[in-house]
């Protein structure tokens, strides 16, 4: 692979692991969105700090891609937030924020960048195992379900030149999961057949595989990286 790859939410957690994984495979230029210059991972990384929910956010990323001077071969829509509550107590603001960041920003960025992508390129959208349902996450689950639908539709409309897939992580050791109270987290791990949380690097490996020609006959799919939790 030669060219540039955009990774959103690249400052920490899964996004950072994806950016590191891609950057380690140079000569690819990684355009890390949301990442501060001092956190630059390698000489192959171009940091961009922009609010992807702002009207100008996607076009700022597009201009950065164009200035990189390398063909765009990959986009990873990773940025996401949670604002958990039971449906009966969920506020309008918490619903709107999660929908806008997790789904709206991903959709607008994908449609902004798709025309720049070269044949053989790939988009990977980070969904979540919560798209199968998860207590207290009506907004998050809806947004990640929407990401799955967006993935299928873009896979059809961008074929045959560009492949589009989704990765649905389960319980991953990250800043987001560390916000879960320890006793609840332990119960969640007990329900995972592989008996542990996943690592951001394990998600990054799957994303990387979907970006490369190793997965050249796969499009429109959702790959769950969840330690078998969907069975238990």
């Amino acid at each position, binding site marked *: 692979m030669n060219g540039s790859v955009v990774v959103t939410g690249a400052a920490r957690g899964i996004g950072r692991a994806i950016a590191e994984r891609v950057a380690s495979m140079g000569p690819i230029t990684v355009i890390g969105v949301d990442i501060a210059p001092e956190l630059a991972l390698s000489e192959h990384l171009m940091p961009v700090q922009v609010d992807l929910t702002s009207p100008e956010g996607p076009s700022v990323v597009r201009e950065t891609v164009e200035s990189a001077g390398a063909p765009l071969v990959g986009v990873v829509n990773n940025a996401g937030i949670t604002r958990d509550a039971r*449906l009966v107590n969920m506020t309008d603001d918490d619903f709107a924020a999660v929908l806008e960041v997790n789904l*709206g920003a991903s959709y607008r960025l994908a449609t902004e960048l798709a025309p720049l992508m070269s044949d053989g390129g790939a988009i990977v959208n980070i969904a979540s195992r919560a798209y199968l349902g998860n207590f207290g996450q*009506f907004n998050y689950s809806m947004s990640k*379900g*929407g990401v799955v*639908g967006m993935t*299928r539709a873009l896979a059809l409309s961008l074929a045959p030149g560009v492949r589009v897939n989704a990765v649905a992580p389960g319980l991953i050791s990250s800043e987001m999961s560390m916000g879960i109270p320890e006793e609840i987290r332990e119960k969640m791990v007990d329900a995972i057949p592989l008996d542990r949380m996943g690592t951001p690097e394990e998600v990054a490996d799957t994303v990387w595989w979907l970006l490369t020609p190793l997965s050249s006959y796969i499009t429109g799919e959702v790959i769950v990286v969840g330690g078998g939790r969907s069975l238990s």
Partner: protein
Amino acid sequence: MSGVIHWAEEVGDDWARVQAELTRAFEVSRASAQAEESFVYVVRQDDLLGRRGPGNAMVATGLLSAARTAALEGSRKRWTANVVAYDEGTDPEAVQAWARRMLEADDVTGELVRVGAGHIGKTLP
């Protein structure tokens, strides 16, 4: 029978319309949950597969995932959340009848019922 049947609106591919439709579904669902009443979303099978563009797809699959989560929460209070998906050309009365049936079936929740054969051989949503 008590509860709400929410038919997904056509939204095209404009994000603002997608956002408005999903917000409308959220408001309807929250009100139903607060009243401890069941609800059913009605979507098109083609949209679960993304075959009519990303806007309608985001709505359909977003509603399916939301129903699954709501079903988990409602199971403690005996209200349900389900989805009915239909093929193009299906008689709307037949779809509505299935939706009513899902409202009445208080032991079935978080389920997707597909009216028609268009889903066979396709991906599981």
